[in-house]
Every structure is written in structure tokens, then in C-alpha cells.
């Protein structure tokens, strides 16, 4: 087990390295002068002023040196400072990451619970009206992109019905309390949970349908056990096993969904920050964020594997 974890982490390192090199390389080969992004475009900068900026931020050095410096600083725990406003990258990311964690965590929790529940529900009633209705709805949930779902939900529940605020994370006139935060969280979390609900439902339904046809379930039935006991004691836990994998697999799509959802609902999280970084060509911020995203995704994959092993004693790591 320990050996397995160690190996996975060791495999993770080159992946990690590759991602940072790719992103750094992409930014490097991009056409245009990066110093143009430091000052508002209306202000005409002299070439000397631009050179000064280059020297101050170390941009006059070759790529390899800059990448090396960046990597060394990261190992020391320093992600550098933003080009656009000079704030520390690490602190900015931590602040925004907590907002996204709240949003994405809620969405994933909603998605997994409702999705699994609906999956079991439909699997037990295969080919019934409920099954068709919900399977059809899950098809919609997968096909409708989060930005379309987002603007429709914003249009209905915030603009027309006025039940929830149209954006942001806290009220403008008061101090945020738990209640106001939940109030602001409902719509974006709902939008972000649609895809996970649909995915978890389809996955659970499929896996449940496999399990209830298994020999040991027939045996249980033959022994005269009650339906409820067969479903919840014998079938459900086994059907749930492959669904665990989906928890880890959902993470990349949650990150992507968060970019759109946060944009629509002006949620001050990683998604909106990433767009700021991209539009302002804030290289240290971009690198820092990609690093964090890669860490989170790789970490989630590892955790999922381990959780699967804990839940299913048949799995051996070696």
C-alpha cells in the first residue's frame, strides 16, 4: 500500500513537471510584448520604461533561466507576485480557492447524493415511466452546457422570480453571515451540480442494473430475503463501488464548469481569477493557478484510487 502511494506520487512528479513546462512554453511562444500588459494601453510607454520593467521582473533573462528561477521559488513555497497589481500570487490563490472549494464542493456533494439516489431509483424500475423520464432528463443534463443552463437558471430564479441574488458571494449592504452566503450559493451550486447529478445517476443506474442481475443477488432472492434487504444490504454497496471512481473523475469537469458558472454568477473564485490572469497575461498568476489545478486533480485521482482500495477489499495494490 505504502509502496503504491509512493509510486503514484513518483509518477505524478513528471506529469506535474510536464504541465508547468507546457504552460510556460505556451506563454513564451505567444506573440506580442508582455510589457504592454503592465500599463494601461492608453499610456504610451517609452522603450526605456519597458526595458526597466523587463529588468525589474527579470524578463530580460533567457526562458530557461526564468523557468528555473520560477521552479526554485516554487520549491521554496514562493509563487511570486502578480504582474498586474503586484500582490502575492499564493495569497490571492488561497483566497479564491476557498470560494471555489465551497462552490464546487457543494455542487459535488449535491450531485453525488441526488445522482446516486436517482440512479438506484431508476435501476429498480427499469423501463418504467419514471425510468424513461429521469434517464431522458439525465441525457439533457449531459447535453446542455453549463453556460446555457446557467443563464437560464439565472434568468428564471433570479431575474424573473427574484428569489436569489444575481451574482457575487456576499450582500453589498451588510456583513456576510452563513445565511447570506447560502443564499448566494444556491443558484451557482445548482448549475454546477447539474452535470454531476446526470453523470452519477447514469453511472449508478448502469452499475446497479449489473449487480441486481448477479448470481449472488438471485441466491439472496432464492433464500427468501425481503426486497429491501436485498437492495440495500446486498446490491447497493456493490453497485456503489465503481461510482467511487467517478468522484475523482468529476474533478476536471468541475474545474471547467466552475469557470463558466463563476463567470455567470460573478463568483469570486478560481474560475474568474483564471480569466483575469489569461486576459491580463499575468504569467506568475497563470503558472501558480495551473500548478494548483494540477495538484488538485492529481491528488484527487490518487485519493480516489486509495478510497476504492479501502472500499473494495478485492483490490490489491502492488
Amino acid at each position: 500500500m505504502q509502496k503504491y502511494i509512493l509510486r503514484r506520487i513518483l509518477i505524478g512528479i513528471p506529469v506535474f513537471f510536464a504541465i508547468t513546462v507546457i504552460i510556460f512554453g505556451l506563454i513564451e511562444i505567444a506573440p506580442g510584448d508582455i510589457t504592454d500588459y503592465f500599463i494601461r494601453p492608453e499610456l504610451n510607454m517609452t522603450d526605456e520604461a519597458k526595458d526597466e520593467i523587463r529588468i525589474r521582473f527579470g524578463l530580460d533573462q533567457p526562458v530557461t533561466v526564468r523557468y528555473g528561477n520560477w521552479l526554485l521559488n516554487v520549491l521554496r513555497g514562493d509563487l511570486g507576485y502578480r504582474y498586474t497589481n503586484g500582490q502575492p500570487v499564493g495569497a490571492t490563490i488561497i483566497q479564491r480557492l476557498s470560494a471555489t472549494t465551497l462552490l464546487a464542493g457543494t455542487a459535488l456533494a449535491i450531485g453525488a447524493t441526488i445522482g446516486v439516489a436517482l440512479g438506484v431509483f431508476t435501476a429498480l424500475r427499469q423501463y418504467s415511466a419514471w425510468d424513461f423520464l429521469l434517464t431522458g432528463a439525465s441525457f439533457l443534463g449531459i447535453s446542455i452546457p453549463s453556460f446555457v443552463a446557467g443563464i437560464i437558471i439565472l434568468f428564471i430564479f433570479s431575474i424573473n422570480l427574484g428569489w436569489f441574488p444575481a451574482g457575487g458571494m456576499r450582500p453589498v449592504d451588510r456583513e456576510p453571515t452563513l445565511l447570506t452566503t447560502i443564499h448566494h450559493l444556491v443558484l451557482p451550486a445548482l448549475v454546477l451540480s447539474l452535470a454531476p447529478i446526470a453523470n452519477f445517476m447514469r453511472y449508478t443506474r448502469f452499475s446497479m442494473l449489473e449487480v441486481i442481475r448477479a448470481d449472488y443477488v438471485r441466491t439472496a432472492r432464492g433464500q427468501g430475503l425481503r426486497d429491501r434487504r436485498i437492495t440495500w444490504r446486498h446490491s447497493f454497496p456493490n453497485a456503489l463501488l465503481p461510482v467511487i471512481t467517478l468522484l475523482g473523475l468529476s474533478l476536471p469537469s468541475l474545474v471547467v464548469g466552475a469557470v463558466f458558472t463563476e463567470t455567470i454568477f460573478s463568483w469570486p473564485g478560481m474560475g474568474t481569477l483564471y480569466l483575469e490572469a489569461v486576459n491580463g497575461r499575468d504569467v506568475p498568476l497563470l503558472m501558480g493557478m495551473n500548478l494548483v489545478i494540477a495538484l488538485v486533480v492529481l491528488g484527487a485521482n490518487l485519493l480516489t484510487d486509495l478510497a476504492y482500495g479501502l472500499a473494495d477489499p478485492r483490490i490489491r495494490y502492488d
Partner: protein
Amino acid sequence: MTEPTQRPRASAPVVQMQNATDRRAAKRDDKRALRRFIRNRAAVVALVILAVLVLATVAAPLIQRYQYEQIDLRARSSPPTAEHWFGTDRVGRDIWSRLLNGGQVSLLVGFGATLVSTLIGTVLGALSGYYRGWVDMVIMRVTDVFMTFPSIIIMLTLAAMLPRSVWTIVFIIGALSWTGTARVVRSQILSLREQEFILACRALGYGDARIIIVHILPNVFGSLVALVTFAIGSAILTEAGLSFLGLGVPPPTPSWGNMLEAARNLDILRNLPWMWVPPAIMLVLTVLCVNFIGDGVRDAVDPRMVL
């Protein structure tokens, strides 16, 4: 992945003779798959709707009443009227015309990006599966990197850095969506390369390129059809997403995504629904159709898969 569903088809004369019965069987399999697809009513309806949509966007110059970039100053933000069937946007451009032309762009990006990604995926998958060893190792590790990291994130960075045009978007989406194809092609080739007709090809002294392109790849395409269909839908959505964030198809060229971007303005979202509802409907309709067709194709080609 499952075992290859159709029988291998070889076209070299000698091999052809040996495999004449196999080839007939393969043809029969194709016909069966086609019949199964036609029996799937949802998929056929979706195919018809999609065909109409494609035709309408291609015929845009014939059925549009204004140029998509033509500005009607007397009718800015006009609701649907006899003159402008779907209304106009804030600068007075005809929504109906922009919807048709935007569809052209969206579909173009969908098909173009899928072509690019399928090409890349097939080449990498073929190399990986045919040569195995360290080639396979390197390619599969690279695939892992691209699979674990959410590709839209890299696309956003790329889209902001590269010169903006429709072709840039096609390239960006295509260049970052090949992992699924590469894996399927690889797994198919891993099993195909062990079969006798490949041994026969080797015995005849054919080169690797000829074996891969002429004898192996035609057998892989069947398992790719469903994947390619889904890829088109996902590429259309990706373009729309990038454009929605303002990093996709650059204005004034319309696409369903950048028409939808208007809805990010709360005033337009609230008061001027004719500007964002039509592209939203078209987008969802198209992707639903593509997904239904993909489901139909998958069931027809590989009836054992049920989900």
C-alpha cells in the same frame, strides 16, 4: 475497450483471396449495423433535424435577408418584426442572419476541430499500438497528462495568446481533444496486429506504413464512428464556451457562442431575450441531435454496450 466488432478487411490481392468470405461477412455486418441504426427512431429523427440545420446554415446566403454584419441604424435592439424576423442586436444587426451564419461557423468549428483531433489521435494511437515499447510508453504518458488536466484550461490560455481567428479556434480545440481517439485506436491496433492477415502482410514484405494505413486503419474506423460523432458535439460546445467567455471566435464573425455572450449583460438577459434565446436553443438542439446520433451509432456498431 471491447474486442473489434467487425472482421478485418484486407485489400492485398493474396490476402484478399484468403479473406473473401471474411470480406463478405464484414459487408453483412455493416448492413446489419445500418439497419440497427435506422430502427433507432430517436437517432433517425435527430439525424433529420441535424441535416435540416446543416442545410439551413449552408444555404444562409439564400434565406438570409440581410448580411450578418450589416447594421440597420433605424432598428437597433428591435424585437422581432416583419422586417427582422428574429429582431436585431444592440448595433442593429439582423439576428436571423447572424443565427444562420453563426451556425455555419459553429458547425465548421465542430467538424474542423474533430477532423484535426481525429487525425492526431489516429496517428498517435497507431504509432503507440503498432510499435509498442518505448514509443507506446511516451505517447501514453503524454496522453495521461492531457487526460488528467482539464483541457479547456489550456485552451483558454492558448486562445488568449494566439492571434484570434476561426482557424485558431479549430486548431486549439482539435489539438487538445485527441486523447480519447488515441486510446481507442491504440487498443484496437494492439489486438489487430496479432492477427493472421497482418502476419501475411509481413510475409509479403509490406512496409510498416502500408500495413498500418492500408490494412489496419480501415478496420479501426468502425469503432471510431461513435467517438467521432460525440467529438463533434463536444467541439461545438467547446467553441461556444470559449466564445461565451470572450476568447473564441472573434467578432464581428458570429457564432452561436459569441451571440450567447450577450446574455452575460444583465440588461440584455432581462429585457432583450430575442438576442440570446435563439442561439441557446440552436446550440442545445444541435448538441442533443449529435448525442442522439452518437448513441444510435454506438448501439448499432456495438450492440453489446448498453448504458
